[in-house]
């Protein structure tokens, strides 16, 4: 054990004297989550404000006076009135107008005789802001006519509402939202872990070859197994650190970010000591599994570039299960608890929703531990291969 601790201390000292490690394992993870939250919320706010302040060019043909008035109420709307049909598609494409609403000539007659009138709307589906704002005007106009008809026909409102649905919500709001967004949380943690583990594993194994220190290490009276275990633990720590600092960044960042009150209270429910501890505990065996696997894969590589190209395809085996965890219908079952990464993705969803079955949680922990033992054994086999390690 003393030997392993000695290796861990020396490797950590060396790694933390490398600027890349500090940036990737501490600075980026601490900053990334709050920066993402702030940037996304600010960008959304900016886009919404910008959209709301934009002038939209609306073309109208045969529009009734009350509709014209509704459009004119928003002074940002620039109206072009067409007296006869034109090539509206070309006019929209060349930017003369952004949308055209064509009312039938007999619109007033249709309305007066309580018939359904059809407005033909020329639009580009990609112009979200234009379509939303015009859609709102049309909806308001339609509602106005509908209410006027109901009033004129003296129909009581309940006659128009034969069925009324009344929901008795038995699940907590936290469960619904937790399951919806809980699947995204592992992306931040696991991809950060992947980056931390990979950089550390390459530095500790391939880096030793590049710096010609592997022979020095192997000439020391230390067992290869202890050297490997020391290196694997350090790579696991360097994988776990980004996840821990991501959480710290999230918790600290949330204190300084103005969130809508409803979202704020939900986040407070999610970011509890209990849920974060359960998530972090899952990541411990996973980081060991990841470090063992990466060391095994890169053991034969002689350069940083070669190690990186050998290890990169593994990312697909991490992203795919994470994507699967987001798919509807994929649930945490007694089968999925044994699939690494997928089980973490699904468990995090359950934890954030507050519906985690603790027996399944323990089984996931045990299965991840077994996988990590397997990965360490594999990495030991590779690390002991003289042809690979002394290449």
């Amino acid at each position: 054990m003393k030997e392993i601790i000695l290796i861990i201390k020396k490797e950590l000292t060396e790694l933390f004297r490398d600027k890349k490690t500090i940036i990737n394992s501490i600075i980026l993870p601490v900053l990334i989550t709050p920066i993402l939250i702030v940037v996304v919320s600010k960008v959304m706010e900016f886009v919404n404000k910008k959209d709301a302040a934009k002038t939209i060019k609306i073309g109208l043909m045969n529009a009734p006076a009350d509709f014209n008035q509704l459009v004119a109420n928003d002074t940002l709307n620039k109206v072009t009135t067409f007296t006869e049909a034109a090539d509206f598609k070309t006019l929209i494409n060349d930017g003369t107008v952004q949308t055209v609403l064509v009312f039938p000539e007999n619109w007033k007659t249709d309305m007066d005789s309580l018939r359904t009138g059809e407005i033909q709307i020329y639009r580009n589906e990609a112009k979200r802001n234009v379509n939303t704002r015009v859609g709102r005007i049309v909806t308001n106009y339609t509602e106005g006519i509908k209410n006027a008809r109901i009033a004129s026909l003296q129909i009581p409102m309940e006659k128009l509402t034969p069925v009324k649905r009344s929901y008795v919500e038995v699940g907590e709001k936290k469960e619904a939202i937790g399951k919806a967004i809980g699947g995204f949380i592992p992306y931040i943690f696991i991809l950060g872990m992947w980056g931390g583990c990979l950089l550390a594993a390459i530095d500790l194994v391939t880096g030793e070859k590049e710096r010609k220190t592997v022979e020095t290490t192997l000439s020391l009276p230390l067992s290869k197994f202890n050297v490997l275990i020391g290196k694997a633990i350090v790579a696991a720590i360097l994988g776990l650190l980004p996840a821990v600092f991501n959480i710290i960044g999230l918790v600290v960042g949330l204190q300084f970010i103005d969130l809508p009150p409803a979202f704020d209270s939900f986040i407070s429910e999610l970011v509890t000591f209990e849920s974060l501890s359960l998530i972090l505990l899952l990541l411990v065996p996973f980081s060991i599994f990841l470090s063992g696997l990466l060391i095994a894969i890169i053991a034969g590589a002689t350069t940083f570039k070669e190690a990186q190209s050998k290890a990169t395809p593994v990312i697909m085996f991490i992203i795919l299960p994470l994507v699967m965890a987001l798919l509807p219908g994929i649930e945490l079952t007694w089968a999925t608890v044994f699939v690494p990464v997928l089980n973490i993705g699904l468990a995090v969803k359950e934890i954030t929703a507050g519906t985690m079955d603790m027996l399944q949680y323990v089984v996931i922990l045990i299965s991840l531990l077994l996988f990590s033992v397997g990965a360490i054994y594999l990495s030991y086999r590779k690390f002991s291969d003289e042809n690979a390690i002394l290449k």
Partner: protein
Amino acid sequence: MKTETTTVNAVNDVSFECKPGRIFSLLGPNGAGKTTTLRMIAGIINPTSGTAVVDGVDLGKSGDAVKSRIGFLTGSTGLYERLNADETLDFFGKVYKLESGAAQERKEYLFEKLGINEFRKKRIGQMSTGMKQKVSIARTLLHDPEVLIFDEPTSGLDVITADSIIDLIRESKQNNKTVIFSSHIMSEVDLLCDDLAIIDKGSIIFNDSFDTFKKEMKADTLTQEFINRVKNS
């Protein structure tokens, strides 16, 4: 199409004895098996059969005990670049399980002797080749090993730095240490060698004292004699 792989013995039936207070040279052309042999003695790689007895300890039975008795210095035994000289020797002292007071005393002695004090806090990665070589020598001698192995220790070094290695080898001999070194620089061999083995294609083709080698010489120079023996083997 067909491809065949064949197993080649890097070394085969290699056997020699190195005595305390004498310098044993292992000579051979590139790829002859020198490095493999020295790596096996140092416990870095395992022989498929056979063993080495170092200072009375069987490598096959007590690998770590053998490693503790050896100081191994080669062109491939680099230093940990992000540690400084002080930290490097502290680390090696702990690995060799030296008592902390003794390790500190030995470190100070070597730093003084090799002139490392002025750059002892400088990180290895920022040192010149000469400085690094001095630290390498210090870490090789820190645990006062009975056996010193040098695999082409002066390869790629400037004459001044190479000279410090030559001094170290000489001094080790004076201290009654067993010294094994491999080289293909015949002038170094001539300068230092007491006993000599020539290895080619994994087998020993000469193993005797250097005096005997010189007595049996048919060529005019050591280099030519070495070439002839390898060619005729």
